[in-house]
Each structure stands twice: as C-alpha cells, then as structure tokens.
C-alpha cells in the first residue's frame, strides 16, 4: 500500500517534470516558427506600399521593374527608358505634388475632385512618364499602364547597401549595413572586453587573496544585473562625449561608443566564466609547476591558461553573444545611421537597435514589418551559430579530458 503510493507519487512528479520540459520546448519552437514565418514572408512581397501604384504610359514596353531600378529612376540616376530595356525615350517623373504646375485650380476642381482625371490626362499625354500615386486616384477609365515591381529577393535583401524601409516609391531593404554594423560593434566590444576580462579573471583566480575576491566577485556579478538602459545612460553621458573630444569628431555617437558600452556589459560574462575555468585548474597541476621552480606567471600562462582555454573561449563567445543581441544600450550610443561603416569612429546601426526603433512605426503585416522580422531571423541565426560554437568548444574540452 505504502509502496504503491510512493510509486504513484514518483510517477506524478516525473509527469510534471516532463510536462514542463515539453511546454518549454514547444514554446521555443513556437517562437522560432513564428519568427521565421513572419520573416520569410518579406520575400513574398513587393517593396511598394499596397495602397500605391506605379504607372506609366500605356504604350511603354516595360511592364516590370526591379526595386533598385525604380529607385534609380526616381533618384534620376536612370534618365532614359532604354537603360531599363525600353524604347529610347526620356523618363519624365511625375509627382502628385507638382500637379498644380500643369493644371489650373479650375481644372482640378473644388477639393481636387478632378484629380484622378488630371492624372490620367497627364499620363496619356506624356509617353515617357512614370507616376507614383495612391490607388484611390486611379479613375475608372484609366488609360495608363500599371507597372509591376519585382518581389524582394533574398540576395538583394542580404547584399543591398541601403536600408530605407520607408522610402518611396519603393522601400530599400538592404540589410548589409545593419549586419556589418552589428558585427563591427560586437567585434570592437570583444576586442575591448577580452583582454580586460582575461586580466581581471587572472587577477581574481590567481592573485587576489580570498578577502579581495569575496568582495570583487559579487560586485562583478552585480554588473551583470544592471539593466542595459543604465549602461546606455552611462555611455551617452560619459563615453559618447569622451570619444567626441578624444578623436575630435562632429558627433560622439559612434560604433566605438557602442563597442565600449557593450564591452563593459560583456565583461561580467567573460570574467565569471573564465575565472571559473581557471579556478578549476587542478591544484595538483599548479603545484607541480611551482614545485619545478616555475614562477607564478609562468605557471599562469603555461598551466592555468592552457587548462582553461576552452572556458575562456566559451566566456568570450557568450560575451559576444550578449553583445550581438543587446538592444537598448546600443540604440542610445551608436547614432543609428544605416551606413556601411568603414571605421569604428562612424555612426552605425545594429540589427537589434533597428528592430527596436522601427517596429513601433512599421504597419502591422506590411513589408517593413516583415523585413524587421527577417532581421530578427538573421540575428537568431547568428546567435544560434554562436551557441553551437560554445557547445563545440566545451564538448571538445570534455572529450580531451578522457
């Protein structure tokens, strides 16, 4: 009787544990599926606002343009239809704001009620025209041709140099500057955090006596608990002006500022993980080295550091992982210009900062909205790779021990 009850109890607890495990895994799976289904949706969309049309003269041979062609036409970099495969005909840009240059107020009518007629008229009369206007101005007997725009391509998305998701007539969805911005800031962060973190870890594990360690260790762990906005404030008030003055820049909001702030934020991770690894160096190994007349430093770099190499690597990678995903602090100090960085002293825009800053403005379900999810997917893949790397590094360690 009693054993039966105990058995039941054990089964019950087992079931509960299994349930929570399953729920967690399902939640993670759900998030990933959601992220990717939204994100990949962007490649099924045209980078043009659903409510707007691009129209051309009915006799124009062209029926489809790529997003970048449209952009270049409106930037007047392409001036003739033959450059995009049409007839030799000068391109005439028609903007709805200029309508009153061509039609009188009388023609336009009260409250612009004849606007659609005027637009139609203008398009019919100009063979080289290309016009961008709201769908609601298309009259019933519209005589122009509605131009098709290519869908966003994965290759263009990844390699595009420009990120203007709200640009008109077509949004520019090139994420290269954002990916590079993210990588630059993270790389800078790790270059700052790794030497510092390593030095601090060595000090804590090998040099500091137990009293100092007992004070410093919790302090460093506390550093990990500070909300990132606070780091952002610190960066904005101290690091940004400092960088501006130090390098004599017009603005201090740069990739470097982001790197410094992220570096500081990554420090606790790097320090605690590598310090743990170093303290795990078998005492016997250190004593063997010292007993052979090796100095403390020789013992540190010949025994302690090699022994904890995988721990140090894991710490560094996890530190970068945190840096790459970090949003708030970076948003506050990097200037957020979506340009491809050439030095650390320029403003950059990172992926998380872009998502955080733009998601609120992007209309739900639109191209911009989905493009931001696609950015989320890229970030997810980057961090996934990082986590796999950690896994690999730590696994190699356990293998080599046997």
């Amino acid at each position, binding site marked *: 009787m009693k054993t039966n009850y105990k058995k039941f109890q054990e089964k019950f607890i087992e079931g509960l544990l299994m349930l929570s495990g399953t729920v967690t895994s399902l939640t993670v799976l759900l998030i990933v599926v959601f992220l990717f289904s939204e994100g990949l949706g962007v490649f099924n969309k045209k980078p043009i606002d659903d409510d707007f049309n691009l129209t051309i003269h009915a006799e124009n041979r062209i029926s489809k343009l790529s997003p970048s062609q449209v952009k270049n036409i409106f930037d007047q970099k392409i001036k003739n239809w033959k450059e995009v495969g049409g007839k030799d005909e000068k391109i005439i840009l028609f903007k709805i704001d200029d309508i009153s240059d061509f039609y009188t107020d009388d023609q336009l009518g009260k409250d612009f009620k004849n606007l659609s007629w005027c637009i139609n008229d203008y398009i019919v009369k100009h063979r080289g025209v290309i016009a961008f206007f709201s769908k609601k101005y298309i009259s019933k007997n519209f005589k122009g041709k509605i131009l098709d725009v290519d869908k966003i391509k994965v290759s263009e998305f990844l390699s595009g140099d420009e990120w203007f998701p709200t640009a008109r007539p077509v949004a520019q969805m090139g994420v290269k500057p954002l990916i590079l911005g993210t990588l630059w800031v993270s790389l800078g962060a790790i270059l700052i955090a790794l030497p510092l973190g390593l030095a601090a870890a060595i000090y804590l594990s090998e040099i500091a006596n137990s009293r100092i360690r007992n004070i410093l260790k919790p302090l460093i762990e506390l550093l990990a608990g500070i909300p990132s906005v606070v780091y952002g404030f610190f960066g904005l008030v101290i690091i940004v002006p400092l960088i501006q003055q130090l390098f004599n820049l017009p603005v201090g909001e740069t990739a470097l500022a982001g790197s410094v702030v992220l570096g500081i934020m990554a420090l606790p991770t790097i320090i605690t993980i590598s310090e743990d690894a170093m303290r795990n160096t078998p005492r*016997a190994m250190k004593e063997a080295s*010292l007993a052979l007349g*090796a100095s403390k430093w*020789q013992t540190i770099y010949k025994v302690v550091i090699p022994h904890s190499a995988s721990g140090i690597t894991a710490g560094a990678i996890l530190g970068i992982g945190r840096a790459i995903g970090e949003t708030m602090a970076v948003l506050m100090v990097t200037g957020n210009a979506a340009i491809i960085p050439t030095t650390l002293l320029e403003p950059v825009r990172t992926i998380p900062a872009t998502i955080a800053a733009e998601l609120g403005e992007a209309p739900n379900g639109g191209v911009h909205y989905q493009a931001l999810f696609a950015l989320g997917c890229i970030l997810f893949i980057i961090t996934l790779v990082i986590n796999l790397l950690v896994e690999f590094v730590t696994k190699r360690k356990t293998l080599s021990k046997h």
Partner: protein
Amino acid sequence: MHKIESKNVNFYYGTNQALKDISLSIEKNTVTALIGPSGCGKSTYLRLFNRMNDLIDNTKLEGQILIDGVDIYAKSTNVDTLRKNVGMVFQKPNPFPKTIFENVAYGLRVNGVTDKKFIEERVINSIQQVALWDEVKDKLKKSAFELSGGQQQRLCIARALAIQPSVILMDEPTSALDPISTAKIEELVYELKDKYTIVIVTHNMQQAGRISDTTGFFYMGELIEFDQTKNIFTNPKEERTQNYITGRFG
C-alpha cells in the same frame, strides 16, 4: 653541516596549530621517512621544505628551516630558486597535459634553458634514471596521460630529477599505485639516495622500514620520536611509537 635543519618549527592554519615545536636535522644523501596517523601534520611539515604552504592563505610559521645552512624563509631567499633545489613528488601522479617529453622538459624550460640538445640529453637521462626509458622511448611525443599510474609517477620523479635538485620531497608517492609499481619506486628511491637527500612521507610501515635510514614519528602535530629507522622499528623509546608501528592505533 646538516643538509636540512628544522629549529623549533610551529605552523598554524589560521588559529589551528598543525605543527608544534618540531626540531630535527637530516643528513646529506639519506632517506628520511615521516610516519604517523592521518592528520598528524606530515604533509604540512614536508611542504615547508619547498615553501609549498606559501600558497595557502592565512598561514603562519614560527621557527627556522635551514637547507645547506641557509634559512629558506629569510627575506633574501628566492622561492623559485629554492624550489629548483628542492624537488617534490606528490601523492597522486600529476603529469601536465603535455607530451611525455615536454613533461620532463618543463622544469628546464621554465628555468630558461633553451639549448635543444641539452634539454634532450637531460630529458633522456632523467627518464633513464627512473628506469622508464624502455617503456616510453618510442612514445615520447605521446600524451603523458597514456601512461599507467605507476609509469606516470615515475615520470613525475623524472620531471623532478631533470632540474637536478639536491633534495627530493615525496608525499606518499606510492599510495595510489599497485605493488609492482610500488616496488619499482622503492628501488628507485634507494638508488637515488647516492645523489639526493630524500624525505618521504608514507603510511606504509614496511616501506619506511625498507627504504629509509632515519624515521620521524609524528603524532597530533608533534614529533614524538626521530631516530635511526632500525631503532624506531626494533627498539622505540616512546610507547606511542611502539603502538603505532605495531598497528595498535592510527
């Protein structure tokens, strides 16, 4: 002059006194065994000779320890130099995660020796001294972890010999080994006596009797008796020594 001299040594871990007024002297080219029940302070005492206890926070030493007449705890003593002269073999074999060759070369390298040929000769020579040469000569480039426990321990002895110390401290060097490996190491200790002064901690009474010239019996931090090994084992002056040796306690 005695090789090692200990004068009224007291040692404390924090407030806990682990050694009480230990005085003894050890002659050159002898083997001295330190015996006594667990926790009586043998390891603590042994580790004073190469200042290994310096690594432990919160310890205090009173009294003097002289090696070749020099106070090894004097301000002017360089600890690294001292440890070159006083080698140590630990209870558990503790080779580095390096090749067999590099394990033995380690002490030379950290002491600034760069001459490749010299290092090679010294490594081979040391491995030969511990009678390990035939067993490892074909796998010097292999990891030291591929050796058996007994082989690893002999490698650790070779590693200590490579920098040519004059004193070798051994803390229960055979306690983790099988009888055959133990016999090999005992034989080795006996041979090494010609060149080195050896202090060995052991729980094995037969071993102490077989290999040592002098024996010190420790009990609760005190040195109860220190004499010729044959006297200790056949005719101890103290009853506590007698009881311990005959296995009545400890």
